């Protein structure tokens, strides 16, 4: 963070939501930000989509001005889960997109946060392409380093078509990194894990919400997250409504994480950050794929003694119960970044050794742990702990790999007519998809079935 004459200068970012999921996340984030009066960390934002009706709904729902939305693509009915279309449309409409971003004043920003879903068509295919044109625009044409963070939402359970799209999306994003044209950091947010978190602590509210929206009695359902249907392949209105209801639940949780991630860079009176941290640090010190864990309103009772044990309990709870994707009790993360914020009495740098000690059981041997303490003078700020675990073991990814493999196997075979599904539905051949699955499996050291 740099200081100027006018006061501390804040590294600003530009938020882009691509596809229905990404746009909704941006919309929800902005709405929440407006209500909470956050410092203007976001320079501007754009919600992109290839589906006209989704754009209209978005505007209406979050009160988003027309100039902050962009409808592009060959038709205005979306990509229907075909990520190749999503990818191509961004390149095809590159000038339109860049033109609108210019109008919105994206020049001079330090980075971009791209919100998307890994399993859709427009966002899944469009996000890698968008990163490519952004990197090209700033790094190759202006010679200026920018950071592009992708917050991608993994599909719900049993959404097999979305799982396959996720494989392609992750592979594409990570392979792009190798050429410095990919995402600097990919944050995985698992819908199913977030839903489980919410269900664990807000069961009553969730039950009411779902009862109201979908007439579902949660008390009688054992596997709620398994109830979210696939909506990329010819989904009906009921399925869309069902998915939308669940997304409504998990979006606020995802946004709290974004808020905490950006928080160290926000200058506020009576606030101290040690060591100084900004969004670039996350990209530099973490592996390309991270899973966040957010434990808000942490309980620490210094007067009750045994602080080391208390911090250990705090970390254990954060990893095992507050991760945004299921990582189990032994994630063996390759890198870790933690941000502990709260009033000065609690967010104390001397707790760092205890916290690191507490984190050791959850990291791989030799993995780096980077701390960040955000302390406030007053005592109204609750204590929050944000953990970013780089490349942890994610059982959910294994599920996605297996589902995707099964789906590819289902349509593979000697029959060219049968294989035609790949081109028709995904716009790529079988081999491309198998390569993507392999990439992901290898990255997470998974053995493919």
């Amino acid at each position: 963070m740099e200081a100027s004459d006018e006061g501390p200068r804040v590294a600003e970012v530009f938020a882009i939501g691509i596809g229905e999921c990404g746009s909704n996340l941006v919309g929800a984030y902005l709405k929440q930000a407006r209500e909470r009066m956050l410092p203007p960390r976001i320079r501007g934002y754009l919600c992109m989509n290839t589906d006209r009706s989704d754009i209209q709904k978005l505007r209406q729902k979050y009160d988003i001005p027309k100039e902050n939305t962009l409808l592009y693509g060959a038709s205005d009915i979306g990509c229907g889960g075909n990520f190749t279309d999503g990818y191509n449309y961004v390149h095809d409409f590159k000038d339109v997109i860049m033109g609108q971003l210019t109008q919105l004043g994206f020049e001079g920003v330090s980075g971009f946060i791209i919100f998307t879903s890994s399993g859709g068509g427009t966002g899944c295919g469009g996000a890698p392409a968008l990163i490519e044109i952004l990197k090209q625009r700033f790094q190759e044409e202006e010679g200026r380093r920018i950071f592009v963070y992708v917050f991608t939402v993994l599909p719900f359970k049993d959404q097999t078509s979305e799982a396959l799209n996720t494989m392609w999306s992750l592979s594409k994003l990570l392979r792009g990194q190798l050429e410095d044209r990919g995402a600097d950091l990919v944050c995985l947010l698992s819908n199913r894990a977030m839903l489980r978190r919410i269900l664990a602590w807000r069961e009553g509210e969730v039950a009411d919400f779902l009862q109201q929206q979908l007439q579902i009695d949660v008390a009688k359902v054992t596997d709620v997250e398994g109830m979210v249907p696939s909506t990329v392949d010819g989904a009906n209105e009921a399925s869309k409504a069902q998915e939308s209801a669940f997304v409504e639940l998990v979006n606020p949780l995802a946004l709290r994480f974004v808020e905490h991630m950006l928080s160290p860079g926000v200058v506020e009176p009576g606030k101290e950050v040690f060591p100084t941290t900004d969004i670039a640090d996350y990209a530099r010190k973490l592996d390309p794929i991270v899973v966040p864990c957010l434990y808000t309103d942490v309980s620490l009772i210094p007067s009750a003694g045994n602080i080391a044990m208390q911090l250990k309990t705090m970390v254990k709870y954060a990893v095992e119960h507050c991760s945004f994707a299921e990582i189990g009790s032994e994630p063996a993360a390759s890198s870790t970044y933690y941000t502990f914020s709260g009033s000065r009495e609690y967010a104390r740098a001397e707790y760092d050794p205890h916290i690191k000690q507490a984190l050791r059981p959850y990291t791989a041997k030799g993995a780096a742990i980077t701390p960040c303490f955000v302390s406030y003078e007053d005592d109204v700020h609750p204590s929050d702990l944000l953990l970013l675990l780089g490349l942890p073991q994610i059982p959910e990814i294994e599920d996605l790999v297996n589902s995707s493999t099964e789906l590819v196997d289902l349509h593979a075979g000697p029959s060219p007519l049968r294989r035609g599904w790949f081109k028709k539905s995904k716009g790529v051949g079988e081999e491309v998809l198998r390569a993507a699955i392999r990439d992901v499996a290898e990255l997470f050291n998974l053995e493919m079935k």
Partner: protein
Amino acid sequence: MNKKGGCKPLTLGAPIVTTLEELRKYYSMLKDVSSKCQTILGGLPSEVETSLEDVGRELLAIEGFDRDAKTSWSLSPKKRRLVKQIDKELPKLDKGLNRSLDLHIELLRNYMVELEELKATIMSFDIKLGRDLNNLSFPSTRGKYAVVLPVISRFVSNLEGLSKQLREALLKQTNDMLEQNRALIKTYDRFVGIDTSDVSISAERTSVDINTIPELFEIRKTLRQEHEYLTSRRGEVVDTLRAKLQASIESALALLETARSLNLNVPMAISTSLEGLMKQLEGEANLTMLLGLVQQYDGQVMKASSEIRRQLLEFAHNLNRILASANISNEASFLPPIPPEVPKEADLAALIASYERLQAYQTNVETALRSETSRILDDLTRAVKRKVLPNSNELEAFVKKQTKPLNKADLKDLVKIYSETSGQIIEEHGKLLAEIRTQEALLVRISETASTILDKTTMGAAPAPVRTTDISFPELVEAYARLHKHVENRIDLFRKAWERELNALLAEIQVIKPTYRESFKTMEEFLETAIKHIRASKSFEEIEEVAREAQGDALYKAQDAIENLKYRLDLKLRLAVSKLLGMGLTIPSEVQAAIQELTTVVPASETYEEAIRKAHHIVEVFEKRIVGYFNQALNEQIKAFSELTNVSVTLGIKTDTYVKQSMKLQEKLPANIEELPDRFDELRELLTDAKLLKDIRSKANEVWRNLNSVTDLLERHGQAEVVVKLKDLLARVPDALDAEQVNTVLEICMALVEAQNSVLDILRNMEQKTEAAFEKLLENTTEYYSTIKRVYDARPQEFSKLIFPLDTLQNLRGKLETVNSLPESIDIFTTIRSLEQQWLEKIKELDEWHKALRVFLADFNPASPKAERNRQLNEIEKRIRETYSREDTANYLTWAARELAAVMIDQKEKAKKK
């Protein structure tokens, strides 16, 4: 004519009359033969008749042609055609004649064969005719009709003559035989009965009229056979007839004996004759003789029956005469139906039966008369028993007299008793009707008179007039009884109404208190006497007279009584007032006005009610406005003193003696104006009691001090307004306590006590409001407040000991509600505030502690089995105790974790049930 015997061929133009004439002759001859054949044979076969008709028709046609030919020009084609036609038809006619003749000859020949077979029979029947017939031989029929027809014609004529003679002789003989047979059948049938199928011809035919000889012979033969059959049964008929006749005579003799036994006079000669006939029957007898005996028997029976019928008619006539003598129609409804008339035939049994029916009828008539008389006597008896008839005793005697001979009386006596009884009831009926009219008239009179004192509703509806036509005596008696009762009821109503009326006058006096009633005593006695008189009276007129007189005199007597009352009260009043004035009491203007009003009442009144109103008014003015005023004043003063003493007790001042004295005073409030001055004097002594005054002043001083000490606290808690009022009261106390009257001192003392109670209430109210606000503050301070409360509720003692002394706080709040001492209340109130502040600080600390529970409870699953849940909870407790070394923190979190787990389990259970 040609050689075949037909007409000779006609020549054109030549006349054909000769030939046609011949043809007509033969045709006529044949018709004659045919006619005779029909007579002889009794009819012709159709074939034969048709053949003759064909010949006739052919002849007619030729005659037609012939006529036309005669009128035609000789050389005309028509004539030629006609001649040709005639020539053509002539052979057909010729042929027809021959055929028809042959058929007739055939018939005759067959008939002759039949006669030949009967020849012997005919000979035996009539030898001459037999010979003539034998001499008649059938002629030769060779040759054509011109030759044969004349011969046959003659033969037929002879045959017809013979046949006619034979038939007539046969018919006569056959009919004679038939008649004889039928006479026998009739006789047999009368006595023995006969099966007519054995003699069917004789039984069914009445005469024989058959044409053909053979048939006649046939039927003659049958009739002869039937005659022989009938003759063969003659002996049987004789036997049967004899037996029947004997039975009839025996029966007749027995019936005659029966008739005699029924007191019918039948001459013995008839029986003797019948016995003679019986003897004759015992000897030899043939049918003719028997038939003669039958005739004699019939004659004797007829004689006997005539005699019996005569006696029957006489019996019936006698019966009717007796009934008619008492003007009783034999068709009267209570009598039995008239028996059938005496039979006219000579059937002895029927006549005797008829006699028996007549006798039975007479018995039934007697029974009916007895029954009807009994019924009338019963009606009279019931009427007597009703005891409403004026002549009940006479009637009772009459009934007794008539009832006695009833059972043994014969028809004649019965008729007499019935006649007298029915006459009596008719007479009673008439008398009763007259009495009913009298009662109805009385009823009208009562209604008219009573209307001045009774309203129509009380009187009830007037009874419907008694029906006088089509009404039986018992109904009339009942109607009279009802009417009579109604009349009595009316009189009773009338009496009671007057009783009420006079009682009302009396009652108006009786509501005057006994103290003042002395003046009305004469009047009371007068009215009571009148009421007694009316009550004892049964006469409508008497009741009315006594009642009206009493009503009229009541007014004058009432005026006298008022005069007397006024005088007495005036005297008492003067005495009492002078004493009260002497005691220093003032007589208010309204009492003076009342006294004035009393003296100016004038006894003279227009009506009784007005007079009584005046009496009441005098009493009311005296009692309520004069004596009442003094009594009320006295009572109020005693009551005020009683209340003061009661209040004094609540303040802890001993007032038993004063209470007793005041109660005594209150109990004996004076009923008479004479006692009033003494009571007022006793009360004055109680109100200035020195000891009582001292006690009250002491209490007032104590409360005054308490209130002075609380003003600061109230001011601090925003009760400035209350404090201002309180200070004002406190400032008034010293002067008020110097008063000499108990009530004045007690009044200020009570005001102080009330103020103290109000302050206590204010403190309690302040506490309640502060507590509610504090609870709200706690709820707003921590979102875990409900759990904290649950933790405390589950372990109040441990919680109070280890975390915060919440029980002390709650106990103090409860105590404040019941404490009545103001200094103590102030102390408790202040302590509670201090504890609340400490509790708030503790709550904030607990809020911090609570955040940890989410972490520990993350591993708790409320859906697990109970054992697993317990294990999880034990593990959580262990982890909490490892994490926190401070005992209070660790203990509290353990308790809270268990409470939250219980809530989660409960919610899960509820969700499952839903």
